[in-house]
């Protein structure tokens, strides 16, 4: 060993091997580190999820943006997008929904549509980047359609998304989407009852417009807080 390490050429050779070895190890380590968590978010959160699961629908056919919008492939590079069940139940029935005009370019995460609920305007983000190619006129005429079927008849827009740069790949789906919704539910539960944990009320069914039911004053701020949690 001593002869090898005192020979500068051998030393350089070992250095190269170490560098190559580490470069090879980086993706393996990163994959290992980012692999699916082996346990549920935490025992407390898991317990909450057990109690709360079923409050909000989360179809596996869609992918989700943390700003509570969903996207689902509609073929030919198009995606149908809308507001998720959590957001529509939190806000309740909107008096008016404002959608962008056809041809508008949307950026993922930037405000795309707005709901007017009891005089409060809520701007919500697009799940993808792309160009608006269709709008759901039925929802514009009757916003209640959104509350009845947020993932079906209540869709909001169709977007033509660029193949490489739409941001669709990083949307939440499967286990990650469930975890994210569990966190959103946990945050909501904290606002409902920060001290005592899960109680009888958690077994019930949420009423439309949860935010207002929780706090008559300042409910719009509460809703905004919950909608922007990541």
């Amino acid at each position: 060993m001593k002869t090898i390490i005192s020979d500068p050429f051998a030393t350089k050779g070992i250095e190269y091997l170490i560098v190559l070895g580490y470069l090879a190890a980086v993706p393996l380590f990163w994959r290992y580190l980012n692999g699916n968590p082996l346990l549920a978010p935490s025992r407390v959160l898991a317990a909450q999820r057990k109690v709360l699961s079923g409050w909000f629908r989360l179809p596996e056919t869609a992918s989700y943006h943390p700003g509570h919008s969903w996207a689902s492939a509609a073929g030919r590079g198009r995606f149908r997008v809308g507001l998720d069940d959590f957001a529509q139940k939190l806000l309740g029935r909107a008096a008016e929904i404002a959608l962008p005009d056809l041809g508008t370019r949307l950026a993922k995460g930037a405000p795309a549509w707005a709901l007017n609920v009891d005089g409060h305007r809520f701007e919500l983000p697009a799940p993808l980047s792309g160009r608006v190619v269709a709008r759901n006129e039925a929802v514009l005429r009757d916003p209640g359609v959104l509350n009845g079927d947020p993932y079906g008849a209540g869709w909001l827009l169709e977007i033509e998304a660029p193949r490489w740069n739409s941001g669709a790949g990083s949307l939440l789906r499967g286990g990650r989407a469930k975890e994210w919704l569990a966190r959103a539910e946990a945050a909501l539960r904290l606002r409902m009852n920060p001290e005592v944990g899960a109680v009888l009320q958690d077994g019930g069914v949420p009423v439309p417009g949860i935010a207002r039911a929780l706090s008559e004053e300042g409910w719009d701020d509460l809703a905004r807080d919950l909608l922007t949690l990541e």
Partner: protein
Amino acid sequence: MKGAAGLWRFLLSELKPKGSLFTPFNLVSVPIMIAAAVILYIRFTHGLSAVTNLSQEVPWGLWKGLNVVTGVAFAGGAYVVTFLVYVLGQKRYHSIVRITVLNGFLAYVFYAGALLLDLGRPWKVINPIIGNSFGVSSVLFLVAWHFMLYMMAAFVEFSPAVAEWLGLRRLRRTLAALTLGAVVFGVTLSMLHQSGLGALFLMAKGKIHPLWYSEFIPLHFFVSSVFAGLSLVIFEGTLSRRVFRSRMSEEHHAHHDDIVLGLSKICAATMFAYLFLKVLDLVHGQKTGLLGTPMGHWYLVEIVGFVLVPMALFTEAVRWRSLWLAKTGAILTMLGIVLNRLNVSIVGFRWTEPVRYVPTPYEVVVTLGVIFAEIWVLRWVINRMPVLSESPAWVREEAAQPAIAERVAA
């Protein structure tokens, strides 16, 4: 608050203690701080040799090795977290920005301030700043400027909380507008001076044991400051949740688990890179033969026990979503940083000398006194200003103003 008199009355009322004075922490820390003050009085009246084992051969002892070199590494959390939130847009860490910046700022004030205790002529510390004698050829010139500028940047970053506490609305708006600039400035300065502290030791080539001396020591100091600072954030967050539970905002409670696991992931990745640098340095410097010596064993304890093991703990913490593993990893990492900085500045320094430097009990008491004093100020601020708690209602109202104006316009 009405006028200067009102402000003065408010400040006086805030000076009163909040809560019990006879807590276990107070009972331990107060006698130590009083003892430290007495020792420091002797140090400034009778000189360094009266209370320390420092000499011309060993001019840097525990005060610099632990308070300055290690304390500044632990302040690294501030620039990492502000970079994550304001530059990378990772909003989920937003709830810990203030406490981290406050921690970083106080760490600089107290630990970099501890430099004054060690200087033979502390009143000359201002010279590199005012130009009486810049000393531009010294690495300490850079360190002095970095420290001073960073303290200012960190204070500007934290200052909106002070304005919110005092109810100074207009000042808060002005200070909040400066935040992003201060963050960018602060991150740049931090990266420079974390490595600059390492560069100080480049001056001591030949005096430091080869296993700890390296031309890459600035890089090692910089990379290790990332996981040192974040480990302190994880550890401090755990303590805060116990001590300041009632003052914490809902946002803070709701995000705690995710924040700890997110920071653990960053720690694991940075430690992975750090290990690579250390292994490469070992081979590049042809130092592997030294690993069989007693100092080599000590080196392996540091690298395996306090870098490799906590890295594995952080990795498993992320995979198992285990807060317990993350906290254990954070504690081991912090111990590892203390070990590393002391190995560089004390244990490995002039390791061939027949008589080695061992700090006097007085030095240990002063070191603890400085740490306790920092914790006292930290606690005082947290109990009064919106650090862990939410900003006052008027701040949230002001933030909502543009939205209201928009609605009115619509």
